[in-house]
């Protein structure tokens, strides 16, 4: 009945096993993380000092665009899907995902999408150069010919995400072990359930907006061309109607991971479980009615500005509830600081700092000064790097012993953490300063008054990049061998995944476990 994997490459090509697919998603996402990271380093190297040294402006714009697209769609989203694949069935006591063949397909179209996207770098006219937000008409009438490949690759990524989400929803709603009621599910499962609904709601909107671009470029329509009776601002509304929920898609699963890790290392149950669920749902709802805060300077009527300002400020409430709950979980716990906990604690601190700058950005009149400056770059990197990247890293260290059966090297994990933590802050904190002092984002060269902080940021970026190689080395060593992990791995962690052996057998929960 239970059988092992096929030998050779067929195991990976034809697999329908949630663990194999999860592993492929995670390795793919790490490869994309390194690729997108190298592009970031090209950007930081060029910005090390004023003047053009390394790349020309046209290539610089391709780097900023590709860095954003690859990190968002290639690194963060697949990593969360990979974690979902590995962990959701094990957390709810299911034998596999509900739709295993679709699972295989939703992974395997991704490498093709990104191969196509990356191949645009070698095309005549270069890769997309209009920023990851690809505002029309820069991305339509004025775009390089490779934009069509970009559109197609976005379509494929969207299809992959939608299939992945359907799979996750079907799994969570249908395959929970008896007794695993909704309000008993681990928060990682809850946050992913909500994230999956967000994805299904907004990925078609993204597909719609790139299709409208395709029509404008090749089939003579004028959705976004004022000369043809269209509206360039319409593009931004449609894009950000996707884009803002997308931001939460990249953070809600992170909330789930951190909500699993902090109780384990505080040796204390998560504080306010049900309020965490409600806060996540509120954030998801609010994410649909705040999109135009990305567009405060487009010239909306004052009533529009006010609505989006108030709605955006409201997000601080459920987000605050989450932060307070994590801290209350830590409070009067019995804490130890292994690598996953270090990353989780850094997540809470730095994500909160990103939240503060987010609140500042929500204030529309002040946003007129912040908008499109490095202050915004600092803000969203503080939310995304400690938010998404640190939580994924924390999750990998937390569950790696369960996946491989070996303990990772704790010293190396701590070295990785401190290098990454220092590198991140040295890179992104000075960006607040240059942004407030007046440096716009997406420029390859800058006025002299921004030189010193840019130099510091560039040095931090290379440190952060180097830290990831320690991570890679540590993970590879752990996969190859190392101290045997126990089934529980940590000190009495909660959750069904810790009731199966380490490494987790190829098939888990072929018969449903008993849930108290």
């Amino acid at each position, binding site marked *: 009945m239970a059988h092992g994997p096929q030998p050779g490459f067929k195991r990976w090509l034809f697999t329908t096993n949630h663990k194999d697919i999860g592993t492929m998603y995670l390795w793919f996402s790490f490869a994309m993380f390194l690729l997108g990271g190298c592009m970031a380093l090209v950007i930081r190297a060029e910005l090390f000092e*004023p*003047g*053009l040294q390394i790349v*020309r*402006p046209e290539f610089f714009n391709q780097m900023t665009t590709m860095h954003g697209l690859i990190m968002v769609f290639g690194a963060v989203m697949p990593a969360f899907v990979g974690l979902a694949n590995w962990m959701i069935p094990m957390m709810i006591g299911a034998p596999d995902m509900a739709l295993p063949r679709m699972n295989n397909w939703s992974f395997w179209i991704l490498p093709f999408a990104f191969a196509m996207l990356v191949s645009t770098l070698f095309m*005549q006219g270069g890769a997309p*150069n209009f920023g990851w937000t690809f*505002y029309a*008409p*820069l991305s339509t*009438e*004025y775009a390089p010919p490779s934009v069509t490949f970009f559109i197609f690759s976005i379509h494929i990524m969207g299809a992959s995400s939608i299939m992945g989400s359907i799979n996750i929803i079907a799994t969570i709603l249908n395959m929970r072990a008896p007794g695993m009621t909704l309000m008993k599910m681990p928060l990682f499962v809850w946050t992913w359930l909500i994230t999956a609904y967000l994805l299904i709601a907004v990925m078609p909107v993204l597909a719609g907006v790139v299709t409208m671009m395709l029509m404008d470029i090749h089939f003579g329509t004028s959705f976004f061309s*004022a*000369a043809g009776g269209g*509206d*360039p601002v319409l593009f931004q509304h449609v894009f950000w109607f996707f884009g803002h929920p997308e931001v939460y898609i990249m953070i809600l699963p992170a909330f789930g991971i951190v909500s699993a890790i902090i109780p384990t290392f505080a040796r*204390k149950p*998560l*504080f*306010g*479980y049900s309020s965490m669920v409600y806060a996540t749902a509120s954030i998801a709802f609010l994410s649909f009615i705040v999109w135009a805060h990305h567009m405060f*300077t*487009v*010239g909306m009527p004052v009533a529009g*500005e*006010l609505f989006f*300002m108030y709605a955006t*400020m409201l997000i*601080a*409430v459920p987000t605050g509830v989450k932060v*307070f709950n994590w*801290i209350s*979980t*830590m*409070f*009067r*716990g*019995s*804490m130890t600081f292994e690598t996953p906990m270090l990353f989780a604690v850094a997540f*809470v*601190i730095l994500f909160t700092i990103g939240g503060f700058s987010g609140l*500042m950005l929500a*204030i529309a009149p002040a946003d*007129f*000064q912040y908008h*499109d400056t490095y202050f915004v770059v600092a803000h969203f990197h503080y939310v995304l790097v400690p938010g998404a990247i640190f939580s994924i890293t924390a999750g990998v260290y937390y569950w790696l012993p369960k996946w491989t059966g070996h303990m990772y090297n704790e010293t190396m994990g701590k070295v990785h953490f401190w290098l990454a933590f220092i590198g991140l802050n040295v890179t992104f904190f000075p960006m607040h300063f240059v942004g*407030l*002092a*007046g440096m*716009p*984002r*997406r*420029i390859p*060269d800058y*006025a*002299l*008054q921004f*030189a*010193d*902080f840019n130099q510091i940021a560039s040095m931090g970026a290379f440190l952060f990049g180097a830290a990831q190689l320690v991570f890679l080395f540590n993970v590879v060593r752990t996969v190859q061998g190392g101290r045997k992990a126990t089934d529980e791995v940590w000190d009495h962690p909660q959750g069904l995944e810790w009731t199966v052996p380490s490494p987790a057998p190829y098939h888990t929960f072929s018969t449903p476990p008993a849930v108290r």
Partner: protein
Amino acid sequence: MLRGFNPLFALLAASVLTGPAIAEDKGRWGTNMTRGVTEVAHTTYDLHMLIFWICVAIGVVVFGVMFYSMWRHRKSKGYKAAQFHESTAVELVWTIVPTIILVLMAIPATKTLYHIYDTKEADLDIMITGYQWKWKYDYLGSDVSFFSNLATPAAQIDNQLPKDDHYLREVDEPLVVPVNKKIRFLITANDVIHAWWVPELAVKKDAIPGFINEAWTRIEEPGIYRGQCAELCGKDHGFMPVVVKAVPEAEYTAWLGERAAAAAKASELAKKTFTFDELYSQGEQVYNKICAACHQPNGQGVPGTFPAMAGSKIATGPIDAHVEIVVHGSKKNPAMQAFGEQLSEVDLAAVITYERNAFGNDMGDSIQPVDILNFKNKQ
């Protein structure tokens, strides 16, 4: 009130007192938003600092509890974990208290926003049009209209010359405006979306093709205020600065008169006949200022993106087609703009003459401004 606590402000004040050299030096370590030179800029700055200090206060409390807990509640110190895990009362408190703080923030923000949106009753209207990659200023109600281009030489950008103090923030012709007058800006764009931004005026507004956005300012102190395009607009997005020169009203009126006279003189010049050498040397200047950004100073273009001028079918073909594409732009490639309205007849004739004879094109022909004028009138 809060401003008094701000060490950055004290530093700024000190640097103003101790002279421009040190002010420039401090500028390299600038960490905060400018207080600006308009009432709106001051209000925006105060609002920014208010929210900032509220965030700092919340941060001190939240991180204080967190660090205390991380210090005290460690297993290594033998601390035994409590097992509490919910409290509806506490959840309600930390839902309601932040909501109240947010309402308190929203009140001044709303007031400021209404003030910024009040574009009524301006003393002066200026139309601002974003082009790839320069700004055009039209003083409505007068004949004065000009383009403002980056003045930093390419050699400084390419590190062949030392960079001057206002590197990338200097233009050939600044926007000149009077102080203590309410100036309304009507902002639009010709090609892609740009954003006109001067931090000291606290004006940032998107310039969108086909739309006209409004903004306003009333500058309190004469001076030169520098900003730049804030919305990614293509290759030279980082190279389209905004420079505003605010002068006393009398000086402004005199300047406007001079500019109007110069405009009249330029249209006179269009009827004059120029020698080949005059056209060629002026054309070289125009080419380097306007055309070289894409077609490159050596006329080689950027393969795959911007066509080469050297040996091009247009520059070495019939002159009518050459005039057509320069004056009306390319129908196939919007990056090649219509320069008919952007350049004077003299500049158009000069640059076309230059392009047909530079980079080894050696056509030997030239065109007079009056021919350009006739070409334009024929349409």
